[in-house]
């Protein structure tokens, strides 16, 4: 069906030497951008899950011992009420040791907490993030301890999630731009090939070759080169990701992301060289067809 695929000697062109390298770089950039986008997505989900299902209640301290004792009684009652709510997994009034630990970075060790108006802190963990449960807690709090305030981390979590979203969008934009740049490169290389082999192309045209026959020579050439380049780029990206993953593992930090992917995400990453090859093939085909359309 395809005749002799080597009848246009494209393998000898200079473009055959540099196109795989360019495609490899493009696929490397696109894959790394996708890795960043996926990692940011995971990180955002982790933060979202970790913080949106927890809240902290802050109750201002009372100066007198008497009032403090009453307040502590109110806190106990409040905690019992909260514990009875659905979707609440844990309620904990932070003790002096825990408060000391929290204040240590700012006030140093050996703080006499009762000499300072340090507020009471209640940490609440929910089974799952639920606006309804949070509203119920807020309502109970306003009834029992009106002076208390609730921090459900939404403000700074929102900022953080917004930032990760922006990074994700930029990373995906890079993937799209890299795809566009790869297409432009293939157009350039194909036009170069058409110029170099103008006589052969004209000969085929005069002998009665269909446009699609001539285009197939260029499209399969581009496909072959881009597969080589694409797989090389993916391999390089794999090595980079493995190195980073090892470094992040050594850091052992809860806030840093982990570079582990699901089967679906691996599939998405493997799509990069495949997409690059398809883009290269289709771009080469369309470029040749457009050029041939100018001939009678």
């Amino acid at each position, binding site marked *: 069906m395809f*005749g002799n695929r080597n*009848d246009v000697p494209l393998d000898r062109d200079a473009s055959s030497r540099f196109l795989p390298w360019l495609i490899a770089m493009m696929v490397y950039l696109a894959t790394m951008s996708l890795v960043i986008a996926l990692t940011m997505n995971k990180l955002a989900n982790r933060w979202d899950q970790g913080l949106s299902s927890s809240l902290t209640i802050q109750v201002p301290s009372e100066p007198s011992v008497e009032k403090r004792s009453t307040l502590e009684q109110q806190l106990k009652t409040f905690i019992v009420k909260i514990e009875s709510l659905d979707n609440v997994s844990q309620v904990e009034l932070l003790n002096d040791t825990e408060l000391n630990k929290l204040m240590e970075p700012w006030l140093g060790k050996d703080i006499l907490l009762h000499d300072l108006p340090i507020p009471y802190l209640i940490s609440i963990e929910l089974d799952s993030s639920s606006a309804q449960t949070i509203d119920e807690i807020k309502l109970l709090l306003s009834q029992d301890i009106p002076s208390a305030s609730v921090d459900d981390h939404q403000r700074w979590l929102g900022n953080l999630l917004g930032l990760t979203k922006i990074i994700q969008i930029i990373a995906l934009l890079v993937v799209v731009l890299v795809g566009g740049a790869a297409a432009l490169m293939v157009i350039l290389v194909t036009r170069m090939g058409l110029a170099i082999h103008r006589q052969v192309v004209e*000969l085929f045209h005069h002998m*009665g070759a269909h446009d699609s026959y001539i285009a197939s020579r260029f499209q399969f050439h581009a496909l072959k080169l881009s597969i080589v380049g694409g797989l090389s780029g993916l391999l390089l990206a794999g090595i980079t990701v493995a190195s980073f993953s090892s470094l992040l593992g050594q850091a052992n930090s809860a806030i840093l992301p982990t570079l582990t992917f699901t089967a679906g995400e691996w599939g998405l990453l493997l799509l990069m060289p495949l997409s690059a090859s398809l883009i290269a093939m289709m771009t080469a085909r369309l470029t040749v067809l457009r050029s041939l359309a100018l001939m009678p």
Partner: protein
Amino acid sequence: MDFKLLVRFQDVHLRYGSGPDVLHQVNLTLAPGSFHFMVGPSGAGKSSLLRLMYLAHRPSSGRLSIFGRDVSQQDRKELTMLRRRIGIIFQDFRLLDHLTALENVALPLTITGQSLDKVRRNVSELLSWVGLADYLDAKPPTLSGGQQQRVAIARAVIARPSLLLADEPTGNLDDKIAERLLFLFEELNKRGTTIVVASHNEGLVNRFNHPVFKIVNGEVRLIRSEQSSPAAPTAGSV
């Protein structure tokens, strides 16, 4: 439309871009099975006239019919099918250096989707007919000019074209070999192929009994018809 005519030019003009007329008011007809020479000095427009015939260009004005089809009315796909019925021998042969003689000759068949294996036998036979049986796997740069020319001829006729166009096929040959080449064209003509040979060598052309068109400054005139031609030369073979 006269379907008995293979090629018909009616007031055809050709210009490239916005330049002057390269061909001016051309009126000529070619009957099926005819053999015509086209003579004229270099740059007179012989190649342009052939390019119109092998559909590399459409006329700038006027009407050109090939195989009974008005070229300007045909879409690109239809022109492609018409081109498959035309064999061309270029002055510079245009063989592909990276392919063997056999692959070069097979090109008009392989571009239509036929596999080289299927057409190998036919191509080998044709190469034997032009005296290149021992050079099937030779690449053009290793062949002499005459051998390359025979490969080009074999390529032009492998698909059994109805119309064979040769642009200065004798240009680089001495008179004896050139004459033998023209005898080969006569052989093809006897098998029913319509032949047009462009040449600037009027002396050589005059040795053959075929009508002659002369092109001067883009104008085409029939300067000799078959009946008024000199005695036919002795037949020979390449």
